């Protein structure tokens, strides 16, 4: 309990400093909000334009796929606020040896590396993402159980996304220039933004079992549409547990690889 309290107090400081920093650059603050909104509009409009010409894509109609996209945007929003900034700092920190200072601190290095930078500006977009999610949820006729479980599933989906992205980022320890890994990470994110049924069988299997990025959105949304498909929730939770332990192992191996450039 004390450990959790300690971590929460550290995280509160991270949030405070991030807000203070964001308030110093007001135009940046506005541009970040604008950037996210432009992205949301383009993602939703693309699907909407396609459905002007087809009635179904796979088993889902327009309302269902629009809800799926909104669900992924809500997950993406959490990712933007909590994690996204930190990934870009990691490659520089490894290359310059700045990671030394992180490793010396009395908290777990994953926590300080990936949760240090909180994107304050993007917090405001929670109204946009959740309004969209509720709007398309109503159109998709979600049940009461689905509405109740929706916030928890968004959080679980975000946790799986975070674990998988941190795992990808550990490969930066093996590279001189790790910037490209962030682009790989973003591309895998793009793959997960579409439902798993659009992909061919082998790709679907690889991205469901070996590296479950397709589980992030497809599994919870399938459960939300049909509450009898609870195995999707088990798949999501199972993937979180397994890949969390794999991440811890991988992170330890990666840290052993770190050669502390500044020392």
């Amino acid at each position, binding site marked *: 309990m004390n450990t959790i309290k300690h971590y929460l107090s550290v995280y509160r400081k991270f949030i405070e400093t991030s807000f203070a920093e964001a308030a110093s650059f007001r135009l940046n603050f506005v541009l*970040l909000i604008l950037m996210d909104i432009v992205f949301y509009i383009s993602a939703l409009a693309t699907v909407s*334009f396609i459905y002007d010409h087809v009635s179904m894509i796979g088993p889902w109609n327009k309302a269902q796929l629009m809800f799926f996209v909104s669900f992924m945007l809500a997950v993406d929003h959490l990712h933007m606020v909590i994690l996204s900034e930190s990934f870009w700092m990691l490659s520089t920190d490894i290359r310059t040896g700045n990671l030394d200072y992180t490793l010396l601190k009395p908290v777990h290095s994953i926590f300080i590396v990936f949760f240090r930078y909180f994107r304050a500006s993007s917090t405001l977009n929670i109204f946009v993402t959740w309004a969209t999610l509720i709007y398309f949820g109503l159109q998709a006729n979600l049940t009461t159980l689905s509405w109740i479980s929706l916030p928890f599933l968004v959080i679980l989906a975000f946790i799986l996304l975070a674990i998988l992205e941190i795992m990808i980022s550990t490969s930066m320890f093996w590279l001189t220039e790790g910037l490209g890994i962030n682009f790989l990470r973003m591309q895998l994110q793009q793959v997960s933004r579409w439902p798993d049924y659009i992909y061919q069988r082998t790709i679907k299997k690889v991205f469901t079992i070996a590296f479950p990025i397709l589980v992030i959105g497809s599994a919870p949304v399938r459960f939300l549409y049909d509450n009898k498909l609870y195995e999707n929730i088990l798949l999501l939770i199972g993937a979180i547990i397994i890949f969390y332990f794999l991440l811890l192992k991988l992170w330890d191996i990666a840290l052993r690889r770190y050669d502390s450039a500044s020392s």
Partner: protein
Amino acid sequence: MANLLKWWQTMRISWSRYTAYRLNFFLQVIGPAIVFFFIKYSLWSAIFSQEPHKVIQGYDFQGMINYHVWTLIVGLVAQGHTAMNLSEDIRLGRISTYLIYPFNFWEFHTASFFSFQILQFCIALISLGILLAIGVISSLTLSTLCIGFLFCFYVSLFWYLLQYLTGILGFWLEETWMLRVILQIVAGFLSGAIIPLELYPQKFVAFLNYTPFPYLTYYPVKVFSGDYSHLMQAFLVIAFWIGITFVLNHLVWKKGIKNYTAAGM
């Protein structure tokens, strides 16, 4: 002649810089284009698998895949360049060196851009060769290919000037990457890179034709597909926007350099 030699040497140095970390270059520049194509291929395969003979706004399955193959090539050649280092040069005070060099900031970055374009052209040719070999592209003539690539280089010049403009706004902004991302999202959506413009509402497309966006992807794809009916119009529209962005770049630089504080000096 001496100036040409400076351009040549800068291009060589930039080439080495781009290819120094090959995996990084692949993941940063080529990877996104391939993944983008893979997603679109999967999506349209899923759509057409339900009704294999369906024609959507003039596109059957093969036509749609051909369209996206050409968007991949156009994306590589015409919109590959980013202004990642420009704002960093300004923020960290690195442009001070360019101010005393006999080869200015604009010349240096333009030479780097040319070098990048040659590299991208080679990658596009290899990609095209692979796509031809596996039969994704069925017919192709040399004249269409030459006109298509020439038009793409022309479009890339406009894209470069736009990127340059977002980069030099670093004189006023702490970070300019958001502007670059906004530009990329807007260009991707409005240029027909995600779905062909025929699928957009007609009134929206009529409006888009007044903007430079359709000329970044949709019209170059049409040229590669052998449709030259809009080539002259596209050429003139891009010329108009190149003129505007060139003047804007000049004005922004002139005003920005007065603000420059040479951080770190």
